[in-house]
């Protein structure tokens, strides 16, 4: 049992930080506070909803505009680009117009751009600048939580904590000497943790899970959800759930979408990013 465990609402979910060892209680509390500050920073920079976030500014930008963004945002955009390239466009951060069309996200403005698979909306350029190339809206919801978890873990390690687990609404990462048991929700019964689902042991690694059971809804005679196949913009409502283990949570988070879209637990992108996947 961890020495201290706290949770705060960030990134649209609860972020749970458990930390243990090597520090007295007051210092441990401070370390966890530092970790939450990193999460808060990611929210400020990458929230779709906050007007002054880098994401909102990029979404308001016109083709041709060049914007300075925070180095964290730049890193996430570059990682998103790498995952898109490795997945043939299955992972695509520019899917936001689809989510807005289905009322999963609020419209940032009235002029909604059409989602075009394969259209390059943003380009990362020298000096940490990002150029808007074409009309489009991005949403970093499929990768920012994982990135926030990685930063939080970094803050805890920097503070000298012995072991820790950071869990942002189901995307989590652990570090420390011991293996940590993690239960994966049964997609057929996500609130019943007594049976069904799966259990894994994680050690100095991250795991993220994507599924449609909390976001699925009826829309115009069909089903939509927050999981989208970037190649077509089509929703991926499914009875299954995809979990990915990877060294970093940002990778695990983004790669779940690739496995969900491809249905392939041996997708080559996994090996490229030192990850493994399971579908339950």
């Amino acid at each position, binding site marked *: 049992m961890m020495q201290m465990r706290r949770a705060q609402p960030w990134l649209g979910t609860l972020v749970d930080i458990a930390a243990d060892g090597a520090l007295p209680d007051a210092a441990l509390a401070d370390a966890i506070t530092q970790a939450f500050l990193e999460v808060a920073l990611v929210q400020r920079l990458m929230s779709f909803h906050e007007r002054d976030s880098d994401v909102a500014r990029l979404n308001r930008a016109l083709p041709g505009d060049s914007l300075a963004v925070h180095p964290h945002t730049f890193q996430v955009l570059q990682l998103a680009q790498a995952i898109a390239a490795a997945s043939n466009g299955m992972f695509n951060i520019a899917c936001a117009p689809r989510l807005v069309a289905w009322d999963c996200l609020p419209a940032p403005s009235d002029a909604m751009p059409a989602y075009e698979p394969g259209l390059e909306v943003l380009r990362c350029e020298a000096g940490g600048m990002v150029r808007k190339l074409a009309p489009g809206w991005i949403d970093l919801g499929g990768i920012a939580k994982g990135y926030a978890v990685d930063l939080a873990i970094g803050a805890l390690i920097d503070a000298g904590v012995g072991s820790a687990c950071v869990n942002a609404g189901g995307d989590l990462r652990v570090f420390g000497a011991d293996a940590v048991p993690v239960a994966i*929700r049964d997609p057929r019964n996500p609130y019943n943790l*007594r049976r069904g689902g799966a259990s894994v042991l994680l050690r100095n690694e991250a795991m993220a899970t994507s599924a449609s059971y*909390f976001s699925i809804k009826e829309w115009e005679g069909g089903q939509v959800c927050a999981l989208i196949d970037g190649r077509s913009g089509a929703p991926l409502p499914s009875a299954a*759930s995809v979990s990915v283990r990877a060294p970093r949570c940002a990778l695990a988070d983004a790669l779940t979408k690739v496995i969900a879209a491809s249905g392939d637990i041996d997708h080559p992108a996994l090996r490229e990013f030192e990850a493994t996947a399971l579908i339950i």
Partner: protein
Amino acid sequence: MRYLYLPLLAAGVAGVVHAPAFATQYLNVEQAQRLMFQDASAFREQNISLTLAQMQQVEKLAGLPARSVNWRVFGAYKGEALLGYVVLDDVIGKFELISYAVALSPDATVRQIEILTYRESHGGEIRNPAWRRQFVGKQAQAGLALGDGVANISGATLSASHVTDGVRRIAAIGQVALKK
């Protein structure tokens, strides 16, 4: 299935017979207070009851109903100086029950939010006030994950919008009823 509600027994066995499927006790009230106002020398219970006019003002400010007349509030003091307030609240989802605390500055801006307990149950119990009463006032050991030893869960993202709505409501209550 009928339960015989025996308050004295329940106090001892609540964690065994009616345990939620998953629960984590993060902080108790005192720990949350001390964490959120590290300089405070005292916390004084200063509960409030909103008037109808105040409830209407809260609804207008927050864009949400005020929901309750009575609110549990503590003033945080360093000597006689008011450092701010700690407001307690519970929100109930379909399957989750979340107790949390909000620290407000004297001008009612939100300083910090800490979850006290998170409980989740797959049956309908969460919506049953009698079932929820088992947990009122019980001080479980902090950091303890209850219920079959599940301590860490991975799954699709569970929205915490009812918590953020609750915080927005509390911020409005602070503006209307606490701010000097």
